[in-house]
């Protein structure tokens, strides 16, 4: 096995083990997405036009919330890198022959795995509320893949920002600055047909929307696999780009110390 993957594997094990020692973190990871789903589901359930073709608003909303949760998780994942920088764990790895890419990939993989677990929880809660995944097994797979990739795209970005700014306050500001606008420039809460034209245009270039489209095709439409595949490939390419960016930022970091 190549060194990068071995190192990534061991570092993911480290992170998973550390997180398992934080019961509060696990509770938040499970409960938070459910709150989004129940809150938004109730809030907008009386507006029939929002659901654009889906049987119920909750069915329309579930894949959207899966994606929102995944990309929020991704944008915040740089906080773990900041913590490792503050504790000088990153410096220790850098002075050892640790792969830079592995240091980034381990954070990105953690974000992806967390997003998949949360996606499954959301789908199960959705099922209890009457949501049907029309795409069947393939549909479930697409939703999980879309949420993993979405988390990874933004995790790569977030970790790069963490290495460039290296401060918690700056990281929080960036995550907020990026998170909410991208959410409202997507069809998470309402169908594309209801968006003003210019937002619809912008949303086509929004990675969040690529994920939402893929997940919604899988749940609501249960088809359109061609375009769905294209969305997933776009997300994969974006993941590669943001991970490359984060790995590159080690240069800037090492120049500064």
């Amino acid at each position, binding site marked *: 096995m190549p*060194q990068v993957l071995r190192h990534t594997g061991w570092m993911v094990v480290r992170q998973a083990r550390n997180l398992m020692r934080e019961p509060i973190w696990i509770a938040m990871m499970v409960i938070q997405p459910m709150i989004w789903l129940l809150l938004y589901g109730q809030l907008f359930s009386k507006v029939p036009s929002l659901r654009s073709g889906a049987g119920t608003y909750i069915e329309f909303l579930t894949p959207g919330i899966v994606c929102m949760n995944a990309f929020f998780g991704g944008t915040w994942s740089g906080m773990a890198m900041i913590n490792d920088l503050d*504790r000088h764990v990153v410096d220790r790895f850098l002075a050892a022959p640790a792969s830079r890419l592995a240091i980034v990939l381990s954070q990105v993989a953690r974000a992806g795995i967390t997003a998949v677990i949360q996606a499954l929880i959301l789908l199960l809660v959705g099922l209890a509320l009457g949501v049907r995944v029309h795409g069947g097994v393939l549909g479930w797979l697409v939703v999980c893949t879309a949420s993993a990739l979405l988390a990874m795209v933004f995790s790569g970005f977030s970790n790069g920002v963490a290495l460039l700014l290296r401060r918690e306050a700056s990281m929080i500001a960036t995550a907020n600055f990026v998170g909410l606008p991208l959410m409202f420039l997507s069809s998470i809460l309402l169908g594309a047909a209801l968006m003003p034209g210019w937002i619809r245009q912008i949303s086509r270039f929004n990675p969040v929307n690529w994920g939402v489209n893929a997940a919604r095709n899988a749940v609501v439409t249960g088809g359109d696999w061609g375009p769905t595949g294209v969305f997933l490939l776009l997300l994969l390419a974006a993941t590669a780009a943001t991970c490359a960016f984060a790995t590159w930022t080690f240069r800037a970091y090492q120049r500064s110390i």
Partner: protein
Amino acid sequence: MDAIVAEDLAKRYKTVQALDGVSFSVRDGEVFALLGPNGAGKSTTVRVLTTLTQPDSGHASVAGEDVVRHPNRVRRTIGYVAQDSGVDWEATGRENMLLQGRIHGMAGAPLRQRVDELLELVGLDDAADRVARGYSGGMKRRLDIAIGLVHKPKVLFLDEPTTGLDPEARAAMWVEVERLAEQENLTILLTTHYLEEADRLAERVAIVSRGKIVVEGTPEDLKAGLHGESVTVELEETDGRVPEAAAVVQELATASEVSVEGHHVRARVPNGAQAIPAILSALDGHGFPVASVTTARPSLDDVYLHYTGREFAVEDEENKPQPPGRGR
């Protein structure tokens, strides 16, 4: 063969010239100390040698490998114990060490054995499976050293290994380092701002001041390089007149490098026995009652004062604003 060679290293952070032409070499198997106050450039030198950052100019090699051209080869042969602990607080001591070993390509039984051996060596075998968050400062420091040694490095960098430790833990750490240097057959580059520590642990010392090495040699040679002895006069009643007393001593032809510390006036003289009567009568003549007089062979303190023209503690204060890089 030289384990570490640094040639004319220079590095500048925005407004601070951290390194201004640092050159020295460390022989194989030697314990070498970079001694200087905070902000003198010791940690930056170590960060260059451990490949964490690159110099603006100059060359350096560790274990025969160039730190800029072959950083990964250097990384495989060195252990690095940074000034700030690099312990993962959420993991146990053992987990910290196992991961470091795996990054160095170790695995299986040899790795587990090595970890057990080191945990015992640094006295953490009982705490090995506890999460490091609960460790004391001294325990974290010992874990740092054990982590740095997992892969059996040839060269160990100890950046301020005892800063922040209480005197008891510091003394224990000194014993630890001496034992490791012997048992692990290591070349050690140590940085410290404790004169005592350099004197005790290092075979050779280089004094660093403002990004430059001002003098280098064995502690004995450095002290012998200063001829004569130091005389310390303790004044009885001072009323803030210690500087005046120092001025009186300064007047004497035999005394040089006069300094003040609390109630004490210190001076260097060619011969203590001959100088003391003159010093005492001069102080008496100006109405300074003397409590005690001692003479001593020069200490590294005197060496530092002699070569930098500054008092160690004073320069430390001057450099309080730290250079950039997350407050280090």
